[in-house]
């Protein structure tokens, strides 16, 4: 009996914490009389949400679309590059410093260049989302391939297995948990990329909506935009987590994270 009660508590606890945070926020704003243009209380943000539902929904959709296309490119390209890098030590050694260097560049600094090439709007936002999110996928896929047990490799090589055989039978399956794990990180980063680009160089999307709200001093709307992003982020993350669980059940047998 206590088992199920404990389980229920765990199920309910994310909601309880969220509601608790909102109540605390509301209470603090009211108790200290914080001006709403400085920090609007959740009730006001909810109001803005209702009032501006049309533009918020439209722009959220655009941001989501942009993010998903960029993310899709990142998955395709990241998987391919990860396999290539994991395939050969020489390629790994050659590309690694380049990738580190590239990853060290703040992607926001690339937006002006992308705008120069493609104009403002949709394309630079997709590309920023792509550029910012492919790196964790590459690294994870390459790591999965690089950590094949040498004994297992010996067993297969002694049977005359080609490198492609080892890749197909061992490398790729054992890389999948790394790959699906990296998707959770990548989708979150992809949102960062598209919103950055939208706020700097676009007339659409949540990023742009927030920028405009700021210009017009509609502070609750800025926060409403943030909430919209948070909701999208959580939904996509949850989708990736479900996908990960589904695809790599064998790798999730530990009870460690469930207690």
């Amino acid at each position, binding site marked *: 009996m206590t088992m199920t009660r404990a389980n229920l508590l765990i199920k309910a606890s994310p909601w309880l914490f969220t509601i608790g945070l909102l109540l605390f926020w509301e209470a603090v704003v009211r108790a200290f009389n914080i001006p709403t243009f400085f920090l609007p209380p959740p009730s006001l943000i909810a109001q803005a949400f209702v009032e501006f539902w049309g533009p918020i929904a439209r722009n959220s959709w655009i941001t989501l679309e942009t993010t998903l296309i960029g993310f899709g490119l990142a998955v395709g390209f990241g998987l391919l590059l990860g396999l290539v890098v994991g395939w050969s030590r020489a390629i790994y050694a050659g590309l690694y410093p380049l990738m580190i260097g590239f990853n060290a560049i703040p992607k926001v600094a690339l937006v002006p260049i992308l705008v120069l090439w493609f104009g403002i709007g949709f394309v630079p936002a997709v590309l920023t989302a792509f550029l910012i999110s492919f790196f964790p996928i590459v690294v994870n896929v390459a790591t999965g391939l690089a950590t094949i047990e040498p004994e297992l490799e010996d*067993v297969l*090589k*002694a049977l*005359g297995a080609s490198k492609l055989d080892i890749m197909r039978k*061992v490398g790729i399956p*054992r890389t999948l948990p790394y790959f699906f794990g990296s998707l959770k990180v990548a989708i979150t980063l992809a949102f960062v990329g598209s919103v950055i680009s939208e706020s700097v160089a676009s007339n659409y999307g949540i990023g742009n909506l927030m920028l405009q709200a700021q210009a017009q001093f509609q502070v609750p709307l800025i926060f409403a935009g943030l909430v919209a992003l948070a909701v999208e982020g959580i939904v996509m993350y949850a989708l990736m987590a479900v996908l990960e669980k589904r695809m*790599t059940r064998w790798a999730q047998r530990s009870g460690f994270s469930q207690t």
Partner: protein
Amino acid sequence: MTAFVSLENVSHAYAGAEGAPAVEGLTLDVAEGEFAAVVGPSGCGKSTLMKLATGLQFPFKGTVTVAGERVSKPVKIAGMAFQAPTLLPWRTTLDNLLLPLEIVEPYRREMRRRKPEFAERANNLLGSVGLRDQGGKFPWELSGGMQQRASLCRALIHEPKLLMLDEPFGALDAFTREELWCVIRDLHASRKITVILVTHDLREAVFLADRIFVMSARPGRVIAERRIELPRPRDLEVTFTTPFQDIVHELRAHIVKARQ
């Protein structure tokens, strides 16, 4: 007596390894159907011996011959098992056993057509090591000893002529280990397969082997060879007899000397 596996004056060093080669002037013959054990101090190049005999590495000096052919590529007639069972966690035990058949010709070509037959063979093999009806389980649902049995089966599924064992029981508890000694003993007796066992455990070597090679410290070479005349089939009780203990002591003295 013609040698099935023969290393003649073999020296080998790993690229990038500084100092002494892993083995130097190593000479060793194993007859067909013989059970050979190789013992020696840590780092004496026992694992290198495994790699040389299976064609994963090639010596810079000397020749390695297996089944009358000079080794110049991986020896497909060999099966290998290591201290870690290295089963694939995303495959069931049965599918793990089938893995070598998906790689080695001619099975590879026939995999699709003859899969039921191969699965039957795998099940029989599992039965012969006491794992009947466990094929549907995933490796992580099996105990360490059971995993190691499955690993042995995987090494045997393509009916190799040569079985290479690199400390296959090192990670097991004493009782499970002795159980698996008997499994190996019976597999060897029933299949007439040539076995080379690399081990630290002298009792294990004496119990199982027809002949024991003692290797020196790095660079490894054979410093003593001991034929074990204990009658077969050997029972675990034999390990408590005086002749058995005497051989173990004698080998131990060689190793102690080799370590100095």
